[in-house]
């Protein structure tokens, strides 16, 4: 049983960041949302996952963030079987991910600055160490003048940019983003897409869940479609 995930600096990191084998998932007293999902995200890959509303895209992200266990099948993250990961070891895996939640999940009692700094604080970095990095990120996402404000004072688009800034801030190995451009205008969507592409070029594995197939095609990423509880690869 693994006690902690392998790090990127390990001599032989897994070539697969994510592997789902015959994964099924459902909620009690409801038909399964996911049935026999097989999916591999190689390290450093960039995928878009599209699908109709209610197809199970967000449920798939819940499995990948270890928020829920699958009802059947097997999931491997960074080369380790999720079923073998003890609860106490899950935070170490989550710290290797950056997640953009559809509902943002911003901490309303923390300032914009502190929300962005959260993943760094949870990794034990000191304010003196990360203040400059956070300021740069806020500058880039256009929120530097709102740094001291609370998330409740931001518009929908600003909240989305804040959520993305927080997810990518610690330079995670895997970014999972649920509709990350749903609340921003086209120009900002393009700008954020470039951010994901830049991170991907640095080796970050990226999975973006979006209903916007046009944006997905424009990104040049591989396109996956979730329908009838299964994932299929869409030909370019």
């Amino acid at each position, binding site marked *: 049983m693994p006690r902690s995930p392998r790090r990127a600096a390990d001599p032989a990191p897994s070539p697969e960041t994510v592997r789902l084998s015959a994964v099924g998932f459902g909620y009690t007293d409801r038909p399964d949302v996911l049935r026999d999902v097989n999916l591999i995200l190689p390290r450093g890959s960039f995928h878009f996952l599209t699908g109709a509303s209610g197809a199970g895209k967000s449920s798939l992200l819940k499995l990948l963030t270890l928020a829920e266990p699958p009802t059947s099948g097997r999931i491997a993250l960074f080369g380790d079987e999720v079923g073998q990961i003890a609860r106490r070891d899950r*935070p170490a895996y989550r710290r290797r991910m950056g*997640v953009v939640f559809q509902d943002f999940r911003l901490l309303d009692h923390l300032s914009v600055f502190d929300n962005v700094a959260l993943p760094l604080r*949870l*990794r034990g970095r000191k304010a003196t160490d990360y203040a400059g990095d956070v*300021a740069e990120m806020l500058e*880039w996402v256009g929120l530097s003048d709102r740094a001291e404000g609370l998330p409740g004072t931001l518009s929908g688009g600003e909240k989305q940019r804040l959520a993305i800034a927080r997810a990518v801030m610690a330079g995670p190995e895997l970014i999972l983003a649920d509709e990350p451009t749903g609340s921003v205008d086209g120009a900002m969507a393009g700008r954020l897409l470039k951010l994901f592409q830049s991170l991907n070029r640095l080796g970050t594995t990226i999975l973006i869940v979006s209903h916007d197939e046009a944006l997905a095609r424009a990104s040049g990423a591989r396109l996956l479609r979730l329908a009838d509880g299964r994932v299929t690869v869409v030909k370019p």
Partner: protein
Amino acid sequence: MIRWSTLFGQKAAPKPVRPESGLLPRDAGGERSLGALIAVLCFLACLAAVGTLAADRASHGWARALRAEATVQVRPRVGETGPAAAARAAETLAGVNGVEEAEAMDRETAQALLRPWMGEAVLNDLPIPFLVTVRLEASAPASALSLSRALAEAGIDATVDDHSLWRGEVERSAGVISLLALAAFLATAFAAGAAIAYATRAGLDARRDVIETLSLSGATDAGIVWMFQRRFGLLAGAAGAVGATVAILLIGGLRALGGDAGLTPALPLAWSDIILLTCCPIVAAAVALVSAWLAAVAALGGRTRPD
């Protein structure tokens, strides 16, 4: 670590480093009300603790006082006066090992003892017994048996009362008082702990969204539990300090007003009691740490499905 300035081709103006905010929202679980409640409970616990000590001190004092004295009733021989028989008995008893002093009680003193019970009118007609008051050595008091034997050897007809009957009753009564005070102290400490545990649980439930976000962002369960422990430990410590301060002022005032005997001789207070109360904030914080730990672990344990 990615240098964002390199990636973005720009560098933001340096900003002053600010103190980090707490990751838990303020007042997660009605903390002001809880603080007031803990302060009151700590105040009551302090009073109960001092009451326990005072009752224990009183019971020992009463028993010690009773143990230190014996009363001998002398019956004069034919042709001998009562005062003469009492004086002879006092002289005999003074020579017994374990006796510090023996003194024949004069009629006026005996009448003064009876006056509150009998009234002035009948006192002069009453056959007042001839008594000897014996003060015993504290370290090795003479027993009733040795006093009786010495009197018999001297040919004195007398009855020795070493107060053992009274002493037993006093000690039993004081023991019950001490136990009741201890129970009151434990009950208030338990109530404080339960209130903290409830508030911790309520805080976790009220901000489940925050807990989940922290958890999904990589916070460990132990880290989240520690956030709650720290929050409620500091709160209880501060509230405990307030409660203890009020109790110290009250008890100090009573002690100062009551002189050496405290408020009353029956329930003596000591300055050392006040020193003991200074531990209250630490005890309150410790109770909070344990309660918060239990509540947070239970809440987090039920938050996700078990492994």
